[in-house]
């Protein structure tokens, strides 16, 4: 079914998708953590983490986490009584905050990788 997207429904969809991605990430995260039992496997996994593909996906992960967290914050603000009149402006404010924080994070990520 086709239906016109609006700021609210798009934000909701992004919130959902990032949530699903984070669920899968959590499984991968626990897998990695549970395999850090001895020095040898620790070194093996840490070598894997140096892979450029992993580095890039970490940048994507940062964007997903920030987007999801700020979408949740936006909804929480409304639940606490912030006027829904500002729902569109708050969406844009949150998007700019995500962009800003991601840029700062990405700067340090890349600095460390180089």
């Amino acid at each position, binding site marked *: *079914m*086709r*239906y*016109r997207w*609006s*700021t*609210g*429904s798009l934000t*909701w969809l992004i919130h959902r998708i990032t949530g699903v991605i984070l669920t899968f990430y959590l499984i991968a995260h626990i897998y990695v953590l549970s395999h850090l039992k001895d020095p040898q496997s620790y070194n093996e996994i840490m070598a894997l983490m140096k892979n450029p593909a992993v580095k890039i996906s970490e940048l994507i992960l940062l964007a997903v986490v920030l987007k999801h967290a700020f979408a949740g914050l936006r*909804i929480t603000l*409304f*639940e606490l*009584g912030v*006027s*829904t*009149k500002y*729902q569109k402006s708050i969406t844009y404010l949150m998007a700019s905050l995500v962009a800003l924080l991601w840029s700062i994070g990405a700067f340090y990520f890349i600095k460390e990788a180089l």
Partner: protein
Amino acid sequence: MERFYTFKIKRFLPDKTPLIRWDEFRIKLNSMERVLDGLIKIKESIDGTLTFRKSCAHGVCGSCAMKINGKNRLACQTLVKDLTELVEIEPLPSLPVIKDLVVDMTLFFEKNDRVLPYLINDEPPPERERLQLPKEQERILESITCVMCGSCTTSCPIFWADKNYLGPSALLKAYRFLFDSRDRATEQRLEAITGEHGLWRCHSVFNCIEVCPKEIDITKHILKLKRFAVKKGFTGG
């Protein structure tokens, strides 16, 4: 100024094959005319079998709600000059279609019944009517303007996925009575709306606000209901 418009209408013909087809009609309308005028013109002069609901034609009865250019609106309130030259018209989404643009609203009205949409007050009635202060009336004024056209509930993605969900319209109706100073059935009504398919299913998608022909801030009312339900201890669901 008169202009030609192409009305692309999704037809549903229960006794024909194929069941669903898209028909295109080219009609001339002036800038003061609305989508409903176009539909009436088509029915009168091109295809008499085109079926749609209409009654007051002035945005009060809520009969002519349909999906116009991908968004639910009242056909009688949408000027053609505000749309593109190609006007795509479909029935309201996610409700069973009876014919063409006429949908079966039973499901929608059933939800309305679930929130007990009537004044409940066991106190003996006064000699004249039950009075209300202007300030108390202001609290429910916005929610009273609802014409129950069904645009909001059928634009809600949660309703598309969960047909048991009460939906914005029924929740707005619940607000209208819960915040009415003359009503006494607070607990009973809160019990009815805070189930698994009730109040807590609203994820603030804001689609209902986008489509409401009466410009009611429905999400604001639902959020107020949520806070009210929490204060009263109705957090289950």
